[in-house]
């Protein structure tokens, strides 16, 4: 059975154009102030890759960038008037990309550097909401540079820093030379407590191979599995999110869990198992098919209601009597989904979804998803 007629992902989903071929890839660089975004940017630009980049920087930042095509942007965020309360986009980005696209053959890719305080969501949503942008460009990945020495402190006092970690497809844990191995493991565990799914690279001076940050296809439905081979592995220990990591005062009476699992986990590999106070990831899997007639209304309704607190979502689903895998991903209320390749004969039909968000009700999500089982 195909996806039932009329059950497109949501009313807020723009028409999905499946062929990204020929679209200019856009990499979004985020990171809290001083983490090393400009270092990474200059590294990308100075490598002998033979590619030409258009770089969009925030005009209030220090511009020390040596590139042919640098555009200053004012990060003007506006709310779409489409009944979607968290659907904000970058108006300046729409305008700049529209203008850049008129320059035939002048560049191969676009890099957007955001201010340290920026929320990555409006940038990402711009690529799903504005059709003119969507026709010409595709979001490749959100790359977040984090400062190994200061990130832990920023996660406590700067919600922006936490958002940037939660939102990332690729995280560069930078300036590792400034911390001890124990401190490094600590901050890595903190990151994993927020976002276990991003690819993490530990770096000094943002030294990574360029293919670790560019050409990721992180928003490409066909590549969700390539990037996260462990995505479908059964891994259900991360759904209890009632553990706090705050500094407890004397009056604090909640149960304290040391919670240092040592089991081998694909991402966490022996790290201390933190759960962030506000931002969590929830992954739910069902060993079998789900009914699209139940799942589609549920997920649409969920993101309509909980969209503001759901930062990112992804899922690979076995739909009842459907030989192809249904893959979706989302940013807040915006969902993008499609049937992809066939399930292989030796492949177990497992349906799995993950959410990264703020104060998610893991049990309600679990119950809602499992009720969609076929």
């Amino acid at each position: 059975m195909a996806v039932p007629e009329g059950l497109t992902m949501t009313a807020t989903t723009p028409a999905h154009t499946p062929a990204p071929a020929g679209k200019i890839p856009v990499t979004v660089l985020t990171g809290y102030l001083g983490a090393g975004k400009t270092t990474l940017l200059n590294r990308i630009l100075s490598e002998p890759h033979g590619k030409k980049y258009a770089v969009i920087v925030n005009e209030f930042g220090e511009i020390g960038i040596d590139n042919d095509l640098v555009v200053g942007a004012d990060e003007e965020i506006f709310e779409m008037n489409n009944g979607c309360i968290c659907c904000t986009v970058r108006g300046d980005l729409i305008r700049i990309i529209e203008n850049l696209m008129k320059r035939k053959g002048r560049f191969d890719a676009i890099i957007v550097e955001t201010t340290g305080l920026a929320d990555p969501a409006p940038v990402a949503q711009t690529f799903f909401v504005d059709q003119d942008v969507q026709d010409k460009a595709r979001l490749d990945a959100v790359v977040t540079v984090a400062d190994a020495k200061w990130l832990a402190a920023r996660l406590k006092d700067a919600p922006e820093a936490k958002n940037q970690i939660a939102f990332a497809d690729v995280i560069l844990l930078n300036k590792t030379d400034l911390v001890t191995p124990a401190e490094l493991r600590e901050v890595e565990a903190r990151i994993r407590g927020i976002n276990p799914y991003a690819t993490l690279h530990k770096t000094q001076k943002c030294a990574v191979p360029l293919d670790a940050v560019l050409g990721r296809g992180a928003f490409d439905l066909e590549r969700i599995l390539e990037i996260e081979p462990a995505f479908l592995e059964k891994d259900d220990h991360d759904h209890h999110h009632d553990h706090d990591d705050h500094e407890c005062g004397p009056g604090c009476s909640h149960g304290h869990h040391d919670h240092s699992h040592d089991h081998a986990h694909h991402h966490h590999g022996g790290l201390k198992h933190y759960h962030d106070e506000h931002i969590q990831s929830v992954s739910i899997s069902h060993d079998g098919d789900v009914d699209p007639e139940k799942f589609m209304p549920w997920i649409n309704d969920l993101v309509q209601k909980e969209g503001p607190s759901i930062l990112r979502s992804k899922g690979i689903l076995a739909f009842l009597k459907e030989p192809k895998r249904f893959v979706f991903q989302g940013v807040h209320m915006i969902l993008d989904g499609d049937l992809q390749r066939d399930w292989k004969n030796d492949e177990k039909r497992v349906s799995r979804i993950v959410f990264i968000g703020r104060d998610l009700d893991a049990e309600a999500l679990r119950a809602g998803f499992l009720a969609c089982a076929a």
Partner: protein
Amino acid sequence: MSNAQIQTLTDRVTTLAFDQHVLKAGFFGEQPFFVLADGAIHLGREKPALRPHDDAILVVAADQSRVVTGGDDGKVIETQPDGTTHILGDEKGRWIDAVTLGPDGSVAWSVGKTVRARDGKGKIRDLTVPSTPQGLGFAPKGYRLAIAHIDGATAWFPNMDAAPEKFDWKGPHLDITFSPDNRFLVTSMQENQLHGWRLSDKGHMRMSGYPGKTRSFAWSYDGLWLATSGAEAAIVWPFAKDGPTGKAPRECGIRPARVSQVAFHPKALVLAIGYEDGWVILVRFTDAAELLVRAGGDGTPITALAWDKDGKRLAFGSESGGGGLLTLPV
């Protein structure tokens, strides 16, 4: 529209090739001009192209006697029919976001949240608006500039000290135009609709139902019709009497491709329509006859479309640099 019914004018089209995105086409008298995104201005085919900017041209406005361009070099430059150029403004490398032309040699442009109006004598006045303007348009009478921005529009008399007048409507507004009779102000919006205000009482008009954004407007010569892009036909709203409220628009040139450019004939109710698949047709309002001007070319969107002053010739250009000149049979 089926090909069997359509009359063709394709044998009266001179094909041109520019190899770069055509931002605007137009005429200085008999002489056609084409402005390209890579920075070239072609004034007549025999002469080499002018390149008044250091690099790309971002925005352009033109009338019968001048082309004014805003470049990514931050400069606003006027080019005259004989090829002489004057720098009207220099924003120190910041991108020029919008430019428009007004009466008596006036011009306005915007950069970030700053709007500058320059009158025919060269006096420049500035206005700062709360959000970056997307579109600018002068009123048909008087030295009055309308500015489209987030959550509405602002109308400003640059040479008067009175506070600018606000026209509120929530949401991001893109391009803006006054009706030729100076009774209505119309904007296109990010959310695929138009919004309008009656200037007399700020009464609202909402014109919706577009599948895409409207990025091209054209008023008929008698000022009674506003043609718009953004749908699989040119949507033409009636502005006689009280405007389009409660009235259905005309849909001209329905095709399986979205309209990207519209241009009304300067003397007759004939609309030139350019499509995203590179087609150009003419539609005559009196009998709904359709005349084919270009059957696709290289298949990229028509990005520039303009009649000459007498309506004898039509110039067009496309995203990939295709172009042409239609000369109507006399």
